[in-house]
């Protein structure tokens, strides 16, 4: 039996996987099976079609177009795989997959997310069955403790301690919540997991519910992920129909039910107390801890909240033992971590690597380095609560403590790579704008502190920076860090702090010299006509709205720097590329 599996996660669908699937469906008469799978994590190669012969991968085809469907159908019908060799994945790209250790992403791109039987056929729900029927909740928690698994949402809190806390909390009614409010811009592993392997997450939750004694399971997913919501809802229904969830789950004495709720667009709801407020129908505003949710959470009852990726690791841990998981990684950070590579990186997508791998191996090894011709400048880690790390920090191992020591953080695992055309001051402002807009407004340090910091950065970017601004930013950062109520506020100025730490010269150049070394800040740009290249064709004159291009007798054209409004209009008009943006001052003629 020959099968074609078409990767249909959000990235694949946006790249045209739906059209490819439809085209193959038309030709299905030839006697092959067509399957839907999720995302392998190689977003840059989408749409991806895997061809199988008797369950063994025969060819992995990449960047497939609907026009390729007849050739693929022929190869499937005849078994002459060489006919589609032109579409086959390169060895270099195949090595990216081989270079990973996949635990959470194990089934992504291989299992059919719409079919529970496919998950079961791959050993799915075995771990849950074993836990629910052969282990006590305490034994499950002990196994998770032995694994050393820590929260993958960013903070890195030991998972077993949450579970143990919820188990020990008094009360009959307890809740277990899966936090799928993946808000960090640049992180998309939770989306991919929910879209590609929803049963693994549900199985992890089921084990967690048994361990904590929670009879109510809630999955909270961002509304911006419509496909993840629908695939998880479908998976939950299938699991209920199989008797895996519900009364006497998996034939045990344990009963539970599951609900899927969607967020409504608020970054702060990733914070667990804000998430609970949102579930209770209120504004998503955090509240002071303690009491911690494991003591008093949703509806005032003990509530255990874990991240999507955390749950996705649980079935493997129960199947292979906590010790096997703990054998991977560093002294303090165990297991693997999924990273989302994006920005100016050559091979964007998801990779899962053992803890302890260096940032360099991830970005340059698996990610292939910078996509553009420019040089690597920084990697942004940990989203708006994290920071930008320069080239010199790339040998830092992936480890909660080692990353925290750099001033950035593990975060949920977003890595946005930037080349040297990106201005770090502008980048810091980008994140501050984001947190200022997303600040819920409850506490003053965050609500006003982020706004003031954004204003200071804006004036620096506009060329109005004042002596003392850098110090003021430092003082403000410390004040917000000390005074803010929740994690969002306390970490809101991290992007500024890491900019001050690693890119201080660049910030000082903006303030003191009124220049932007990256050439990105428009107000600080200097437009310049290179005399050697100018042929006096006068084309640029027409493009300038303020007539600031003038002819100096006996010379070529020059730009009157005082009159120039930096509108960028002249550059595309010059046929000789003689007009450039200078990173330094105007050279002496």
């Amino acid at each position, binding site marked *: 039996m020959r099968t074609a599996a078409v990767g249909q996660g959000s990235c694949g669908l946006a*790249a045209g996987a739906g059209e490819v699937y439809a085209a193959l469906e038309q030709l299905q008469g030839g006697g092959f099976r067509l399957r839907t799978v999720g995302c392998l994590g190689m977003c840059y190669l989408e749409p991806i079609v895997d061809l199988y012969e008797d369950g063994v991968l025969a060819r992995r085809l990449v960047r497939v177009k609907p026009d390729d469907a007849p050739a693929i159908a022929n190869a499937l019908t005849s078994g002459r795989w060489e006919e589609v060799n032109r579409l086959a994945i390169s060895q270099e790209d195949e090595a990216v997959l081989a270079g990973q250790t996949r635990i959470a992403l194990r089934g992504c791109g291989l299992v059919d997310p719409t079919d529970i039987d496919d998950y079961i056929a791959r050993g799915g729900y075995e771990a849950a069955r074993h836990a629910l029927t052969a282990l006590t909740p305490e034994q499950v928690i002990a196994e998770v403790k032995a694994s050393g698994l820590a929260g993958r949402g960013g903070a890195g809190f030991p998972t077993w301690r949450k579970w143990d806390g919820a188990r020990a909390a008094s009360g009959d009614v307890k809740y277990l919540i899966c936090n799928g409010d993946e808000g960090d811009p640049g*992180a*998309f592993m939770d989306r991919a997991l929910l879209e590609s392997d929803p049963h693994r997450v549900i199985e992890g939750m089921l084990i967690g519910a048994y361990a904590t004694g929670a009879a109510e399971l809630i999955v909270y997913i961002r509304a911006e992920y*419509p496909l993840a919501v629908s695939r998880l809802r479908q998976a939950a229904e299938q699991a209920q129909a199989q008797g895996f969830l519900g009364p006497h789950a998996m034939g045990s004495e344990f009963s539970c039910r599951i609900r899927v709720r969607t967020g409504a667009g608020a970054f702060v709801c990733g914070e667990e107390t804000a998430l609970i407020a949102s579930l209770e*129908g209120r*504004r998503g505003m955090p509240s002071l801890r303690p009491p911690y949710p494991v003591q008093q959470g949703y509806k005032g009852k003990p509530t255990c909240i874990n991240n999507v990726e955390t749950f996705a690791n649980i079935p493997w841990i129960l199947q292979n033992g906590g010790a096997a998981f703990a054998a991977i990684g560093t002294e303090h950070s165990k297991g693997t971590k999924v990273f989302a590579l994006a*920005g100016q990186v050559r091979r964007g*997508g998801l990779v899962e690597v053992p803890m302890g791998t260096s940032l360099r191996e991830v970005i340059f090894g698996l990610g292939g380095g910078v996509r553009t011709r420019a040089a690597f400048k920084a990697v942004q880690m940990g989203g708006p609560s994290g920071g930008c790390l320069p080239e010199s920090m790339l040998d830092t191992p992936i480890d909660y403590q080692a990353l925290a020591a750099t001033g950035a953080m593990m975060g949920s695992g977003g890595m946005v790579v*930037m080349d040297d055309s990106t201005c770090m001051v502008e980048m810091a402002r*980008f994140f501050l704008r984001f947190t200022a807009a997303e600040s819920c407004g409850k506490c003053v340090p965050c609500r006003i502190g982020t706004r003031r910091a954004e204003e200071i950065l804006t004036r620096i970017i506009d060329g109005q920076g004042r002596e003392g601004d850098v110090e003021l930013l430092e003082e403000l950062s410390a004040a917000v860090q000390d005074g803010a109520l929740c994690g969002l506020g306390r970490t809101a100025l991290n992007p500024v702090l890491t900019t001050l730490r690693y890119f201080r010269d660049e910030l000082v150049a903006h303030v003191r010299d009124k220049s932007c070394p990256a050439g990105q800040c428009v107000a600080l740009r200097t437009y310049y006509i290179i005399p050697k290249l100018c042929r006096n064709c006068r084309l640029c004159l027409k493009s300038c709205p303020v007539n600031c291009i003038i002819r100096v007798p006996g010379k070529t054209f020059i730009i009157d720097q005082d009159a120039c409004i930096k509108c960028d209009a002249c550059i595309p008009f010059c046929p000789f590329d003689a007009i450039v943006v200078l990173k330094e001052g105007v050279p002496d003629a």
Partner: protein
Amino acid sequence: MSECRAPTLESGLTRLDEMLREYDCDSDNLVAILQRTQELFGYLPEEALTHIAAATGCPASAVFGVSTFYSQFRTTPVGKYLILLCKGTACYVSGVNPIESALQNYLGVPDGGTTEDGLFTLENVACIGCCCLAPAMMINGRTYGHLTPNYAVSVLKELRAREETP
């Protein structure tokens, strides 16, 4: 996200009542109730909000408070095509700003605005999670990636042309 065919207010409120019963008129479900209401009307009309407040026993101020806290909720009608322009980190690094200007110029509306013909609403969103396709936008649930200013505008032109052909 399907095209919205908004019901009249009266028939809408009847359907709203049915839906409220599904949620036991419980204000704990307020976010979900507002999401369903917005699906029904395409936005949150003031009448619907006061109706929900009365039915759930939740103060109208709290219902309005929740409806303005979350970015998903809109209190004005939305165009036939809802353009969600991603302003996430990856899209920012890959140059979303010129695309935003091009879209705003073409449509003649700012962020959050709806064109006079009621065809397009332009909205900036935090991140749609398609970072490898950056810069990206989502129109009525479909994602368009690797945008350039020209390509982004051409997508809208195509949609508009489709509307104009009878």
